[in-house]
């Protein structure tokens, strides 16, 4: 079985893993669009979404409702974070904001470890685990994916479309983007900047919570699941273009593909290094990313 015959499976796996990264990446772009800042606690939003959903399921709540509860919980959490930690420091420097969100992520991780313990926790898949086989043996070896992965991809696509519409076609979305471009000018134009920022955090929390809920059956919920996901999500956002939800998803997919293909071709040991090396290359050659707009000089 040569590499070529396995290629379709590699591609499919790359896309499914990539949608996980893309979903996380979308959350970053929202907050970046509103504040020009990067939220290093984004990964923790995903963690909380997953863990809250898992707790609900453990109490007997049906899976769909559990995910919704998780989304709501994280939305509240994100708004709280904005009010308590970001708002008071809105005039601070980049470094200060970075440290604040890093501190917040430490805090959230610690609380999660206390509330849910440190072991991995399971969550049932939405529509079972029977693999969906796309192609049987023949020219290519069999290609299959799990139903939960289809869920992830579907949700990511829907979220991407919705956000793109929001950002590009609605007044609210444009108002949010204006806040990051020039806060003072936005205020002068009559945009309630602080409310827009709060809104962007709340939305980002909603998406993060959703991400956690749909990832949990695949990745298992654990207090520290958000760390690496957050980093890869950030790398994906940079790859695709920081301000752009479509870019975030595309970046995620490309990242997933590259990672998976490098596993196949090089070695699995260095695959994380490949992901971050790609990010570095993009940062250095085309910082606005594959699909980004040059809204600010880098």
């Amino acid at each position, binding site marked *: *079985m*040569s*590499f070529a*015959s*396995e290629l379709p*499976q*590699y591609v499919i*796996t*790359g896309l*499914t*893993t990539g949608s*996980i990264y893309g979903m996380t990446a979308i959350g970053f772009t929202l907050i970046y669009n509103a504040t020009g800042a990067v939220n290093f606690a984004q990964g923790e939003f995903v963690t909380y979404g997953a863990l809250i959903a898992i707790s609900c399921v453990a109490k007997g709540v049906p899976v769909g409702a559990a995910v919704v509860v998780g989304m709501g919980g994280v939305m509240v959490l994100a708004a709280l974070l904005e009010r308590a930690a970001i708002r008071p420091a809105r005039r601070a420097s980049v470094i200060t904001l970075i440290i604040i969100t890093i501190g917040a992520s430490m805090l959230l991780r610690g609380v999660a*470890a206390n509330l849910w313990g*440190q*072991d*991995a*926790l*399971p969550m049932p898949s939405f529509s079972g*685990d029977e*693999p969906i*086989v796309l192609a049987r043996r023949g020219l290519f*070896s*069999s290609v*299959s*994916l*799990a139903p939960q*992965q289809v869920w992830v991809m579907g949700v990511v696509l829907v979220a991407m479309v919705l956000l793109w519409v929001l950002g590009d076609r609605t007044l609210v979305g444009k108002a949010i983007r204006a806040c990051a471009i020039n806060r003072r000018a936005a205020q002068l134009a009559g945009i309630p900047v602080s409310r827009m920022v709060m809104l962007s955090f709340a939305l980002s929390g909603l998406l993060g919570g959703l991400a956690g809920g749909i*990832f949990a059956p*695949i*990745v*298992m919920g*654990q207090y*520290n*699941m958000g*760390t*690496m*996901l957050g980093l890869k999500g950030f790398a994906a956002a940079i790859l695709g273009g920081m301000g752009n939800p479509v870019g975030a998803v595309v970046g995620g997919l490309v990242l997933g593909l590259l*990672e*998976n*293909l490098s*596993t*196949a071709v090089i*070695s*699995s*040991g260095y*695959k*994380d290094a490949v992901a971050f090396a790609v990010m570095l290359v993009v940062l250095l050659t085309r910082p606005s990313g594959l699909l980004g707009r040059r809204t600010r000089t880098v």
Partner: protein
Amino acid sequence: MTTRSCWTVVLLVLAAAVVMSSAAWGRAAAGSPYVIGAIFSITGDASSLGVPERNTAQMLEKQINAAGGIAGHPLKIVIEDDRGTEAEALNAARRLVERDKVLAIVGPSRTGTSLAIKDYLNKQKVPLVSCAAAIQIVEPVAPYVFKTPQSDRMAVAKIVSYLKAKKITRVASISDNTAFGKGGLAELHARLPKAGITLVMAEEFGPKDPSMEGQLTKIRGANPQAIICWGTPPGPAIIAKNMKTLGINVPLICSHGVANATFLSVAGAAAEGVVLPAGRLIVYDQIPASNRQAKVLRGYATSYQKTFGKPADTFGGHAYDAVTLLAKVMATTGPNRDKIRAAIEKTKGFVGTGGIFNFSPTDHNGLSEDAFVMVQIKNGKWTLLK
């Protein structure tokens, strides 16, 4: 600037003095109790190891003291948390040796942290009974350093015996990139060829990776007869699920790293049929009463379950072995570090949860392949394979 710098210096010294001297006031070794130290990873990444170990140590302290202590002296275990980092472990070791003047130290939970304090404790001549797995802890042998967990070497040897019995000659491996996974992989590379088994592919994964399908697709292409996975949950659980998704039906053999309840709950139905080497503790109720370990296993498993409401696991068992070994030895040697060390080295036939220990000057682990049994997961439960 001068005032500020003066103040910085003064305040620093004051603060340091307060914190440190408060730590320096400690228990004066009040003649009677036998004090041993314990360093576990109670918080941090390895807490799923450290917490059962800490629980076991505390439970044993109470039990031993309730039964009259060690030759009439109460046992006191001073527990430190190394948070899974080496610098912390070294700090903790220094604290225990200096401030608490312990007679011996149990733990740490992990390989890295154990190696970090190995030289220090050996130099200080304080016996260390580690609860970590890697063989490097006792090879090369340091006079004061011992360990209770079974080594990767034995786990691999057991797996090799199983493979030979099933007449399997082509296997692939997928191991995590932590010290545990790398250690297992190294042993596989060393032992499999000697047994005439070909390792057709060796892949790696990160402990927090969301999917191992890429590696498994590559493995699938190489057509192994079995896949050996070396890691701790959730990694192997994700691998088990990925294998079902990809339609890979060959047997999955895991390491003893999954011999815990977390793996069962997280892997769910995908764990069905997985085979692994494990200490007898997880199948204690299937061990015949005639087995020499039966009594110790049952005793520990039932009292842990009763005290903490959770099933006992292998890691707690390592701490159990370490503490009971020390207690047994101290009953005859008294509070003397060198005597304790010498006595451990001479101990033979010590029945623990991990196996039956036979220490010697060249073997500071004291276990062999028999410490493991092959276990299979059937209907979501551990089943002893005969």
